[in-house]
């Protein structure tokens, strides 16, 4: 496969044409995966021996937490592409992804709190994982606020891209600093590919489907938001031209 062909999509027109054609399929796939994964997870898996039916929040909590981290990674990559190759679509995709990532972080924190209340006996504990998610949420907020605060589009794209790079380093640093600061209440990884202590297959398959659903939903939303932003910019350009002419 020729990787250089990928850069053709840096052309906003080509990007919009292709993604617009693919968008309905992503929506349908996302809805199907989410409905199947969540219904399967909620109604057709056995209750856990000790946790009862509360364990089922897992199908919302785990995918949203994974997405919260992966969306930041996606923003990091698109920011790098913007800095190196100056493709506007890339910067816009990062901008479009940020609020989705922030919402995913909130979903992960909220479902975690709802599960933690009966299980740990507390809504919130200053556990390393919880704390680093809260910090990640603050990073998302700062990133979004900086985008909103700057008038000039290119300046905003440049500044937020650098903030994303620096923020990634500090977010990682905080993740491990927080580990040092307090011992955890949160269980370890339960979906690793290489470990023996994973969840049983009955829980694993519906979880996989709902993770796929979250990923597809994210892709569909990013495409939608990016294309909206491209159109909005075109409108502004047209209006500006009309005022001149």
């Amino acid at each position: 496969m020729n990787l250089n062909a990928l850069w053709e999509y840096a052309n906003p027109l080509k990007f919009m044409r292709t993604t617009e054609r693919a968008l309905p399929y992503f929506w349908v796939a996302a809805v199907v995966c989410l409905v199947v994964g969540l219904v399967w997870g909620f109604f057709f898996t056995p209750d856990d021996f000790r946790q009862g039916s509360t364990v089922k929040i897992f199908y919302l909590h785990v995918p949203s937490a994974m997405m919260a981290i992966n969306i930041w990674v996606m923003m990091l990559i698109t920011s790098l592409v913007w800095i190196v190759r100056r493709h506007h679509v890339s910067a816009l995709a990062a901008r479009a992804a940020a609020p989705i990532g922030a919402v995913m972080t909130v979903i992960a924190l909220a479902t975690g709190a709802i599960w933690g209340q009966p299980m740990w006996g507390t809504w919130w504990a200053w556990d390393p994982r919880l704390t680093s998610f809260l910090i990640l949420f603050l990073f998302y907020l700062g990133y979004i606020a900086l985008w909103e605060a700057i008038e000039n589009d290119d300046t905003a794209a440049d500044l937020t891209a650098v903030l994303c790079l620096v923020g990634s380093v500090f977010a990682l640093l905080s993740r491990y600093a927080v580990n040092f600061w307090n011992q955890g209440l949160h269980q370890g990884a339960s979906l690793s590919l290489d470990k023996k202590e994973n969840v049983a297959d009955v829980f694993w398959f519906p979880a996989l489907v709902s993770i796929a659903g979250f990923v597809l939903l994210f892709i569909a939303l990013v495409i939608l938001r990016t294309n909206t932003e491209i159109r909005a910019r075109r409108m502004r350009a047209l209006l500006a031209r009309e005022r001149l002419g």
Partner: protein
Amino acid sequence: MIALLMRDLRLAMRAGGGFGLGLAFFLIVVTLVPFGVGPETGLLARIAPGILWLGALLACLLSLDRILALDWEDGSLDLLATSPLPLEGIVTMKALAHWITTGLPLVIASPLFAVLMSLPGAGYAPLVLSLLLGTPALSVIGTFGAALTVGIKRGGLLLSLLVLPLYVPTLIFGAEMARRGAEGADTTTPMLMLAGISAGVIALLPFASAAVLRVNLR
């Protein structure tokens, strides 16, 4: 570069330069905390390292938007950027000037404030050392935040939102070092981590600050 540093220091020392403002803010925080949590010596001694670190951090934050905003408004930042000095050197000097006018006084005055917070005797040396190691990182990270928001009108609140998450690792290791010192435990690990953060930040972050400043100046 030395001349730039001296100029910034002179500007800060003169009337209206805000020198000592951070110190006064630190004093107010330390005065207000006992009103908030009660005057028991045992409780104060236990939270003293954390409160002193938080106070120092907030005092640093307070003066961040002065680092670049004044030079931006009167145009001297444009002149500096067109001078033969590399922009990386300029932001480093700005950070250094900020540290000398804000961080260093805090470090020197911190034992006094520690008395007010009834810090245990063993904790003084680790507290001063942790602030000495940590406040340069606060200044350099703050300069990055100031460079990001310099073009924004009333960017002060945004500046705190951007900078505070970046302060998390420094605060964790700094406060941990001071706390372990106060409890008489071994402070080597957090001290090394704190020094590592400061060294890394001083070495690398000026490049990011200069990059965003170039974007803002174009």
